[in-house]
């Protein structure tokens, strides 16, 4: 019952759930499935937001909660080798004393697993400067649907051959099941400056983001929270966000002391030019943590004020942010739904959160329509339907808006190379006439992003 859910829920539960401890266990399960033509779905912590780990057509669910060993930490080579069930934050904590960490930091990093991060090519606030999961994974051990085990990449850069590691990352469990991951570790920065810029109007905040980008400053993180959302957060977490503001930007720069100082003062100047009413800089690690606590617990906070919500993940060019935020406001009005915005502004990666009550069928329908309209606008602007959450089953019907039949055909051929019978993670990524029944968008109260 529990495994019917991640950030989404599906109608069909898995027929059986297995908890392997070793690659060999996974191989045996997969071979069994192949012999009996059973479907197989891999699952980490189930924190995904696109339904990627849902067994929407039944079958065997392989849960990686018992494959959570950090197999090797190799500081001099800046690498670690882990099993897929290792929790993202646990890896960073394990190498923290050596002055290193794993850079991709999804908001669910206290719970989400590295295997899930690999499957969805997860992002996070700090991937603005450091890149997403694919930029930090160098090697994989993968079990193919035939039961064959292959190794791609490794500890070194540029292993000869096609970059299958890069192909597997973000393939959402449709090509193979990852059983071991070699990642790159990043040295912690010398200094971090965390700033909160407070605005009366959303448009000034979005203009600031565009101006920071245009000046070629790349903060480590550049997050925006609109007034509606930050009031919900503040009531729940007391992060110190001003209750009467129209929007805030949470900006972090890190690196060499001198570089941080220069970037921080340039950013402060840009904020002021764009009518920030106040700019606060965290004076201590505690203050910094508090500012981030608000950001990272936002979804729980919204859960307190709405029975259900639906999070989106579209991406647009950063120059178009002012226009887009205005558009999202209009869409909310048009469909009579409340939409909050809390997102990775520096990447142009939107997360509009549409609040609703799933018991209200008409409102649920309007939510879906509003969501589709926002994503269509992202595509119009030259953007994408997903920046970090994945297509999963949630967005399969939008794929034809983004890709031509030829594009999709080539992706299908690639899927056919690895997963010819479609036994691994069916109903994901590709548009299909056989949908997993009706997708119920009752994303969790207290769901994590």
């Amino acid at each position, binding site marked *: 019952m529990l495994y019917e859910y991640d950030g989404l829920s599906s109608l069909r539960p898995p027929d059986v759930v297995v908890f392997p401890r070793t690659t060999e266990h996974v191989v045996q399960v997969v071979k069994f499935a192949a012999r009996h033509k059973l479907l197989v779905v891999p699952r980490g912590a189930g924190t995904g937001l696109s339904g990627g780990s849902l067994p929407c057509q039944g079958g065997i669910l392989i849960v990686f909660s018992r494959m959570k060993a950090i197999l090797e930490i190799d500081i001099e080579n800046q690498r670690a080798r882990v099993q897929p069930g290792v929790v993202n934050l646990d890896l960073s904590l394990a190498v923290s004393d050596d002055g290193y960490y794993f850079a991709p930091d999804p908001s669910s990093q206290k719970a989400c697993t590295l295997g899930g991060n690999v499957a969805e090519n997860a992002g996070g606030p700090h991937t603005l400067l450091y890149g997403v999961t694919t930029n930090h994974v160098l090697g994989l051990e993968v079990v193919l649907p035939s039961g064959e085990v292959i190794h791609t990449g490794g500890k070194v850069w540029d292993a000869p051959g096609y970059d299958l590691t890069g192909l597997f*990352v973000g393939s959402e469990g449709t090509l193979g099941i990852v059983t071991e991951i070699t990642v790159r570790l990043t040295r912690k920065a010398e200094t971090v400056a965390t700033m909160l810029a407070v605005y009366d109007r959303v448009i000034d905040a979005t203009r600031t983001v565009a101006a920071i980008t245009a000046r070629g400053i790349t903060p480590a993180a550049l997050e925006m929270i609109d007034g509606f959302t930050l009031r919900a957060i503040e009531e729940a977490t007391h992060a110190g966000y001003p209750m009467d503001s129209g929007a805030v930007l949470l900006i972090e720069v890190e690196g060499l002391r001198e570089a941080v100082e220069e970037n921080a003062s340039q950013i402060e100047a840009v904020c002021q030019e764009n009518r920030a009413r106040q700019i606060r800089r965290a004076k201590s690690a505690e203050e910094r943590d508090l500012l981030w606590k608000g950001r990272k617990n936002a979804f729980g906070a919204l859960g307190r004020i709405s029975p259900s919500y639906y999070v989106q993940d579209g991406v647009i060019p950063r120059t178009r942010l002012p226009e887009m935020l205005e558009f999202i406001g209009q869409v909310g009005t048009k469909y009579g739904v409340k939409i909050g915005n809390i997102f990775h502004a520096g990447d142009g990666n939107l997360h509009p959160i549409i609040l609703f009550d799933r018991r209200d069928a008409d409102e649920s329908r309007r939510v879906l329509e509003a969501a589709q309209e926002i994503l269509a606008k992202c595509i119009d602007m030259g953007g994408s339907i997903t920046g970090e959450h994945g297509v999963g089953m949630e967005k399969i019907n939008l794929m034809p808006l983004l890709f031509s039949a030829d594009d999709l055909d080539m992706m299908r051929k690639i899927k056919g190379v690895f997963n010819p019978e479609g036994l691994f993670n069916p109903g994901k990524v590709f548009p299909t006439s056989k949908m997993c029944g009706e997708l119920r968008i009752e994303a969790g109260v207290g769901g994590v992003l």
Partner: protein
Amino acid sequence: MTTAVESFRTSLAAIVGESHVDSEPTACAAMAVGGSVPQYVVAPHTAETVAAVLKFAADCDLAVIPRGSGTKLSIGSPPRRYDLALSLKELNHVRHYEPADLTTSVEAGMKLGDFQDFLGGDGLWLPLDPVGGTRASIGGILATNSAGPLRLRFGSPRDMVLGIKVATTEGKLIKSGGRVVKNVAGYDLCKLLVGSYGTLGVIVEASFKLFPRPATRATWVLEPGTLGLARDLRRRILNSPLEPLCMFLLNSEASILLRNGPHSGEGQGLELWLEVGGSPKILERHARDLAEMGRSMGVPSRQLNEQAAESCRLRLGNYEQLFAGSFPDVMVLRATLPIAGSEEFLSFAQQVAEGEEVKIASFAQVGLGIVHLGLWGVKLGTAASRLVTNTRKAAASLGGALVVEQYPNGFKAEPDVWGPRGDHWEAMRRLKAEWDPKGVLSPGRFVGGL
């Protein structure tokens, strides 16, 4: 000219236009790869005609090698067959440019130097210094995932590319990714195509994220004297907060080549070059810390004047030309190693070279574990094979791999310039068969004869 050749020529002219097809022997000879000379040189001027040429080639079973500027075609096994050189040089336009968004889309044939000049007007750049330097084409850089020393700070083309458009042997144009900096919709075909050496499809256009050009750059040279001290220095630097743009260790032959060109004087022993970029304050901080590190370790350090540094950068970017002009029999080996293995590998390579009585110039990106060895005076035959086998064994024993990137005419690498097939090779073979069922794209040039 035989009738078949003439008939293919006419058909190709019908696709791309008479002036875009050449079958003159001198033009074809200039396109030779691994000793093979094609019969046609075709230079389409649109992405659509690239796709049409590929389809035609597949239908008629003509083997095609795509090329930009040809600076990296020495990499790979000699082709099994080769009929048509597909030049991308006429696809050389910037298709989209959004400086305020730090994104751009550019055609594959554009030369990196021209592209950098274009971006420079807005203080931007694509921070790449690949083999071939400014002459390298965007498509060639992507097809080989070629990155030079700047990779330490900025990553490789794989990390900068946001989207690609690819012509397939089915005659189609397909895309992956887009123009936004974050995108996980669909399979990441960019990763698959980047570094596929023209064996799956032909990249005709790519979108990149752009970076601000550092306000100023400065280069420091440290002389550790021994590989042991070089290793200690590398550890100190990588564990410090310093953020160099690049860092590489040269042996004395390499430093002579880099500083003065070939045959010009005595080397000065090992040199660790570090380049730093940014504001005066950032440069000052690096100067202070590097000088202090040098002092505490007894390693002399000095700053290079910017003019000398710039000409060294140019030579480094064009090192394959530097070698080709001076040492036509050069063999270039590229080892990718765990970072900690670089110095040990260098020590081993030096011994092997001495044993075989060949000269060796080593360029080691010690912050990344990527080592280029230039060897000349290599005797063909068993000595050459032994040299490759032994250095490859050394790389493998350290957990790395070794590729022969350039070899003298007549060299037969056994078993493969790429090294052994891994357990993922069968998956590679099946992917190749989907993309290029007739096997007309760069046949036999890639790992395991793909």
